[in-house]
């Protein structure tokens, strides 16, 4: 579409050229004359005259076109950029993920990207634009695209790349909302630019082909593509550090390049430090570990740092990683129950007694507190006597992340909880309770797999198991994929296990109340629960550092690595930068934050269909209104030259 820089000049130009045009158009190329000796003109006259008239018309056409071209040139014609109407809004999403911090020579990718956005906003000239910063949370330059660039400049002046994965999908959604809002309720339309480094995760969660048809997607790749060696994670083995038990912190070093590397890595846990030389194969991972045995409970700082690394290491922010290891005196067990622990007829009392006798130190909480489980809590979760199943999202996350749940089926609420963990499938689905007290004998328990770690201590003690009978029973057929350690004679699961994510879901379908079974009267229950730490303790934690950009649940404000206080928002504090976050006393470590592993791979990704990458320069050129007036000016001059040549030739012939 052609636009005009100085459309008003057209009227002026018409006024200026009107006399010439009128002269040209009204010019009589052939005058009529009375001439008595016309017959002496000879034979050539007709042909020459036709040729001359043709030439005259050609000269007139050239003159007219030259004037027209020059007049148009004065009006400043420009070819509008990609969008159909030339005035639709444009939204520039600036990837502010951590990978944008990669350095290429003297500048960083982030600085180049900001420059590109600024230039792009200029090239988009008179079109309304909005810049959305896709950092840890999307942040736009304004609610609506703006014609002046004040908001954009202000945003760019204060913007910094984050340390997380960024929020490109959310930013794109925001941009689409903006483009839709600008088109008066019609389908969203306009240009959507993503300025990014093109790293592996830059387009995660974005599908350009799913955009509305009127939205033109442009992926502007600015620099990027550097090689990087990163501390990807600080693992912990076993998953719970206990006083007096050795624990190991494992630094996972990843070579995000196609070249082999050697790196010197320092790993520290508490006061124990180790320096290791690692050989890193291309695109491979190596580990550096340090082991210590905590002598007291509390927090231990874990730390890994790449001391030296041969070759290019474009991103410095992920060369160091901090984590916090919580050392417990014993394996924590959280018991959630709505029963009274002093109630003799409740299942909670014998269960607590058995846990204590097994050497565990259970803490008791009401069933509703299940919804308040904090992420990263490595405690074993035991539920019994739940009256009403609470919200279980936190429990699901606990299980999926490697936690352990022992569910003792005693109440209808306990049975209902087996159906209430979303998509997670319980080891069995207990039904309604059946009263068997009228029978001469209760339902017998039979062993199924005594090599299971939880019941292996009962091997050789089968008579004990045979003494257990149920007088109140809930049929519970095992679910697919469940491991049945103990079963009732009717085939129902008595003790089963099912792997859920990285965690374990244990289900004890033996009500320990005396009215329901003989479980509590025998020493079987303490024998079972004594093995619980072996089952419930996670073998490892993949990373004892939280990802930057995430929110850490906390009851009080913390101090970030730079010493600034981080306020609580919705019961948590946002980990905006890598490093150790401490409590307000400045000593106690609360949490360590690190760069998300995905941000360490800086190499250009293969972009999805519909998101072909262009360079910033190509984007500028594409966004720029292409000036046409020089061409019109050139055409006008060429036409004038042609006209002059033709006219001079004509005169020469004469």
């Amino acid at each position, binding site marked *: 579409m052609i636009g005009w820089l100085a459309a008003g000049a057209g009227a002026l130009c018409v006024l200026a050229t009107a006399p010439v045009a009128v002269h040209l158009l009204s010019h009589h190329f052939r005058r009529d004359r*009375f001439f008595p000796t016309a017959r002496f003109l000879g034979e050539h006259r007709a042909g020459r005259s036709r040729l001359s008239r043709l030439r005259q018309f050609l000269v007139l056409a050239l003159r007219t076109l030259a004037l027209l071209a020059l007049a148009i040139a004065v009006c400043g014609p420009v070819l509008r950029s990609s969008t159909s109407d030339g005035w639709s809004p444009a939204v520039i999403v600036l990837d502010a993920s951590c990978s944008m911090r990669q350095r290429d020579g003297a500048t960083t990718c982030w600085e180049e990207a900001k420059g590109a956005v600024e230039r792009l906003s200029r090239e988009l000239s008179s079109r309304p634009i909005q810049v959305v910063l896709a950092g840890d949370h999307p942040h736009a330059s304004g609610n609506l695209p703006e014609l002046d660039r004040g908001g954009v400049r202000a945003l760019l002046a204060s913007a910094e790349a984050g340390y997380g994965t960024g929020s490109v999908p959310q930013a794109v959604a925001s941009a689409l909302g903006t483009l839709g809002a600008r088109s008066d309720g019609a389908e969203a339309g306009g240009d959507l630019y993503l300025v990014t480094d093109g790293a592996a995760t830059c387009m995660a969660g974005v599908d350009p082909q799913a955009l509305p048809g009127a939205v033109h997607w442009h992926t502007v790749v600015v620099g990027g593509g550097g090689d990087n060696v990163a501390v990807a994670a600080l693992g912990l083995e076993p998953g719970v550090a206990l006083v007096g038990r050795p624990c190991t912190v494992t630094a996972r070093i990843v070579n995000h390049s196609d070249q082999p590397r050697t790196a010197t890595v320092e790993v520290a846990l508490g006061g124990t430090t180790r320096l290791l030389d690692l050989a890193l194969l291309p695109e491979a991972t190596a580990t550096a570990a340090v082991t210590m045995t905590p002598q007291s409970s509390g927090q231990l700082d874990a730390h890994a740092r790449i001391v030296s690394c041969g070759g290019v290491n474009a991103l410095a922010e992920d060369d160091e990683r901090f984590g916090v290891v919580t050392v417990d005196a014993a394996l924590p067990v959280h018991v959630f129950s709505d029963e009274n622990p002093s109630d003799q007829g409740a299942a909670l009392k014998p269960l607590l007694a058995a846990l204590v006798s097994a050497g565990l130190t259970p803490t008791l909480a009401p069933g509703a507190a299940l919804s308040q489980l904090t992420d990263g809590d490595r405690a074993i979760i035991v539920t019994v006597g739940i009256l009403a199943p609470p919200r279980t999202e936190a429990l699901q996350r606990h299980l999926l992340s490697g936690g352990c749940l022992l569910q003792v089926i005693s109440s209808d609420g306990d049975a209902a909880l087996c159906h209430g963990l979303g998509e997670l499938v319980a080891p069995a689905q207990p039904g309604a309770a059946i009263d068997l007290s009228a029978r001469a004998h209760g339902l017998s328990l039979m062993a199924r797999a005594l090599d299971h770690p939880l019941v292996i201590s009962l091997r050789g003690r089968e008579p004990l198991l045979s003494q257990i009978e149920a007088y109140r029973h809930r049929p519970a057929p095992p679910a697919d994929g469940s491991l049945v350690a103990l079963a009732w004679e009717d085939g129902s699961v008595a003790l089963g296990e099912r792997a859920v994510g990285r965690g374990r879901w244990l289900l004890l379908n033996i009500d320990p109340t005396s009215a329901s079974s003989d479980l509590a009267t025998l020493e079987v229950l303490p024998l079972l629960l004594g093995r619980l730490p072996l089952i419930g303790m996670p073998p490892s934690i993949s990373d004892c550092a939280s990802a930057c950009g995430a929110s850490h649940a906390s009851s009080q404000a913390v101090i970030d690595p730079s010493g600034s206080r981080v306020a609580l928002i919705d019961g948590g504090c946002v980990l905006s930068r890598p490093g150790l976050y401490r409590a307000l006393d400045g000593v106690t470590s609360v949490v360590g934050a690190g760069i998300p592993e995905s941000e360490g791979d800086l190499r250009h990704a293969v972009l999805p269909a519909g998101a072909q990458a262009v360079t910033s320069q190509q984007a500028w050129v594409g966004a720029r209104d292409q000036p046409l007036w020089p061409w019109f000016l050139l055409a006008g001059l060429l036409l004038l030259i042609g006209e002059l040549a033709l006219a001079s030739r004509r005169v020469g012939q004469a």
Partner: protein
Amino acid sequence: VKARFLPVVPRLFSRGQLLLEARRQVDGLYAGGHRTRSHGSSLEFAEHRLYVPGDDPRSIDWRAYARSDRLVVRRYHEERRLPVRILIDASISMTYGSKLDAAVLVAAMLGLLALDAGDDLEVLMHGLTERRSPPLQGTTGAERLCRFLEEDEGGRRADATTLLTRLRDQSPRRSLVILISDFVGEIAPLAELARVLTGMGHDLAAIQVLDPSELALPAAWGETLLHDRESGLQVACDARTAKAAYDANISAHITGLRAALLAANVDHLLLSDPQSLTQALSAWLVRRRTR
């Protein structure tokens, strides 16, 4: 005729002022009679001839008889009142530029010369109508001549050949015939008529009046549609490109005309500059006298 066809040209004389203008210009001319080719009794000796019976004895040259012992008679140039006829082509082609003015002015000047010399004068003018003047003589003849010449502004389709044809048919008496025309018509019939008339004893002189733009086509005219209203021909041309051919053609025509007229024993005078009519006419008269 559309107004724009007519070029604005300065008149050579104001209406009613022809006599004054002609008289003014004649004052600069050679004033004298016309020699005749007839021989008779005159004061100017011409030759001797042997006496033959029947000759007037008074014409015998006795002195020559005394010297040569032969009877010879003296012969003299005869000087007499010579009828002069001026034929003016006032056709459409002569209305171009100042040609007709020049023709009328030249006719008036020559007429005054003839009248001053005591010659009988008659003017035949083919303009809007075919007009013949009454015999003109003396002082009154001059005034009548000029009135006659001023009465017609021309415009008829005619040419010099028509005039000569009329003369041949209507005036068998010998005379000095001065034909004033642009002579842009065909040469051959004109030359043929001229030969006939000179054979009849007429002394024929042709004065060709052309506009300067007819002698050299102005290139500045550019693209032009030329209307030859006498022939009905319309020619579209670019004067800049057609000039060379035209100039050559008109030059060849004039050369051919002059040659044809000379072959018929006809004097030819080309007048193309209205500002130097007197000089050109004077030179021509001198040339004729010394011929």
